[in-house]
C-alpha cells in the first residue's frame, strides 16, 4: 500500500532525534488519534534552518512524512520552509494512500508550529503564518473518502 520511498523513509528515517538548544520547537497531533509529531529547528542569524530533527509517534506514513519534511526544509530559509505544503511532501514520497494524506498535513503543520513558536518568542512576523492555528492538526483522517 506504500510506495518504496515511503518505506525507505519509514525504515531509514532521516533526522530522527532532538536538538537541545533548538531555536524552534513545535508539536502537533495527539495520542487519541494515534499520531504526534515533534519538530526541532536550528535557525541561524540569517534565518537559515541549519539543522532539523524530529520525533514522531504514529503510523508508517506519519514517520515517513516527518522524515521527508525535515529533509525538504534543511538548509532553507524560514520563509522558504513556510512554503512547504503537505502536497509537496506527499509528492516527494511518490504519493500516499488517500486515508494517509492527513499525515502529510501533520508534517506541514509541525514545521509551521515550530516556526510559529519561534516567531512568537522573537516577535517576528511572517505573512505565511497568517491564520495559522497550531492547535489544528488536519485530523480529518480522510473521512471524505468514506
Amino acid at each position, binding site marked *: 500500500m506504500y510506495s518504496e520511498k515511503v518505506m525507505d523513509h*519509514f525504515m531509514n528515517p532521516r533526522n530522527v532525534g532532538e536538538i537541545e538548544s533548538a531555536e524552534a520547537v513545535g508539536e502537533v497531533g495527539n*495520542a487519541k488519534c494515534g499520531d504526534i509529531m515533534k519538530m526541532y529547528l536550528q535557525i541561524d542569524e540569517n534565518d537559515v534552518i541549519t539543522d532539523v530533527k524530529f520525533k514522531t*509517534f*504514529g*503510523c508508517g506514513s506519519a514517520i515517513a512524512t516527518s522524515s521527508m519534511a525535515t529533509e525538504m526544509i534543511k538548509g532553507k530559509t524560514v520563509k522558504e520552509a513556510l512554503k512547504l505544503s503537505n502536497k509537496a511532501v506527499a509528492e516527494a514520497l511518490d504519493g500516499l494512500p488517500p486515508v494517509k494524506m492527513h499525515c502529510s498535513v501533520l508534517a506541514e503543520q509541525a514545521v509551521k508550529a515550530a516556526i510559529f513558536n519561534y516567531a512568537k518568542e522573537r516577535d517576528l512576523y511572517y505573512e505565511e503564518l497568517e491564520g495559522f492555528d497550531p492547535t489544528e492538526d488536519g485530523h480529518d*483522517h480522510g473521512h471524505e473518502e468514506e
Partner: protein
Amino acid sequence: MSKQIYFDYAATTPMKKEVLEEMMPYFNTEFGNPSSVHGFGRHGKTGLDSARDKIAKTLNAKSDEIFFTAGGTESDNWAIKGVAYANKNKGNHIITTKIEHHAVLYTCQALEKEGFEVTYLDVDEYGMINLDDLKNAIKDNTILITIMYANNEIGTIQPTKEAATIAKEKGIIFHTDAVQAYGNLTLDVNDLGVDLLSISAHKIYGPKGVGALYIRKGTKTKQLILGGAQEKRRRAGTENIPGIVGFGKAAEMAYENLEAHNKKLINLRDKLTKELLEKISYTRLNGHPTKRLPGNVNISFNFIEGESLLLSLDMVGIAGSSGSACTSGSLDPSHVLMAIGLDHETAHGSLRLTLGDFTTEEDIDYVIEKLPPIVDRLRQMSPLYEKVKGGNK
C-alpha cells in the same frame, strides 16, 4: 528476508491439504445440484449430507439442526435478525456486549434503527462480562441474548454456559458467535444450552465463503435469504457443495486433533507472552491471562503505534495484526480495546499475534528475537517515550 511467518490465524487460516483433496471432486466430477433428481445431483447430496453429519457431531447437535451459510457473518446476521423478526410479538429487547464482532454489533445497531432496543453489556479489564449485569439487563420484553463465545481480538472466553442458563431460566433465546472458538475449544450445544451458534470454515483450515448456523429444534427464526427450498426451506440458494464438503473435513480434523492442538498452542502462546512481557518494558497483556483462546496473544506496547509496528514486523517476515485505528482507516482504535478500558495511546499500540497448527517453536523464538529491537527503534523515535525516559532519569 525470505522468511515469512504467519501469525494471523484469527484472521484466516491456510486450508489443509486433506481438506482441499476432499473438495476437489466436487468442483467438476461430483458437480451436480443436490436438488436434482438424477445421479449427479444425488452425489452432490451425499457430500452435503455427510458434511452436515460431521459438523453436527463436533457440536453434539443433530444433523437437521445445522444450516449452511456463506460464512460466520451471515450466520450472525441470520441468527440475530431471524430471532428478532420472528419473535417481535413477544418483545423488542436484545442483550449483547460491547466487544462483539461487527457482524453482531452492526446487525444490532441496524435493528435499533428498526425500533428494537439493544443493551450492550460492559466488560471488565479482561474483557469478561459480569453475569449479574446480564441478569439485571433482562426485561419482560427481552427476546434474545447474543454473547460471543470467545473474542477475536483479545481471545477472552466468556462464561457462555452460565449466560445461556440465565437465558433459559427466563425463556429467552440465546445465541453465541463461536466463530473463533470453533475448532479450538470443545463446544457441546446441549451442555452449553445455547439455542443458536455461529461457526465458520476458514478459521479452522477450511475454505472461505462457507459457515453454518446451529439452530436448536423448535427455535423460532425468520428466513432471510429467499428462493429455493434448500436447507429445509430456511436458507435458499444452491449449496456451496465444494465449500461445505471442505468445511466438514476441516471440522472433523479439528476435533480429532483438539487436545494435542490445544496443548501445543497454549504452550507456545504462554511462552511468547511471557518472554515478550519480560523482555520489553511498558507492555501489557490484553485479555484474560488464562481464560483465553489457545492461540491468542495480544500485547500493547506503550509509546508506539500499531501500524508502524506491523510494517516493521512485515519487513522481517512476521505477519501480525493490530487494533490501531491506522490499520483500519477509521479514527478510533478497536472498540474491544476501548471497552476493556485502555486509553487511546495504549490501544493504538496493540499487537495481536495469533498462532495455529503450523506455528513452530522456532517461529516463536524468531519473534522473541526480532520484536524487542523493533519496539526499541520505534520508541527511540517517539516523543511520548522521550517524556517517560526524561521523567525516570
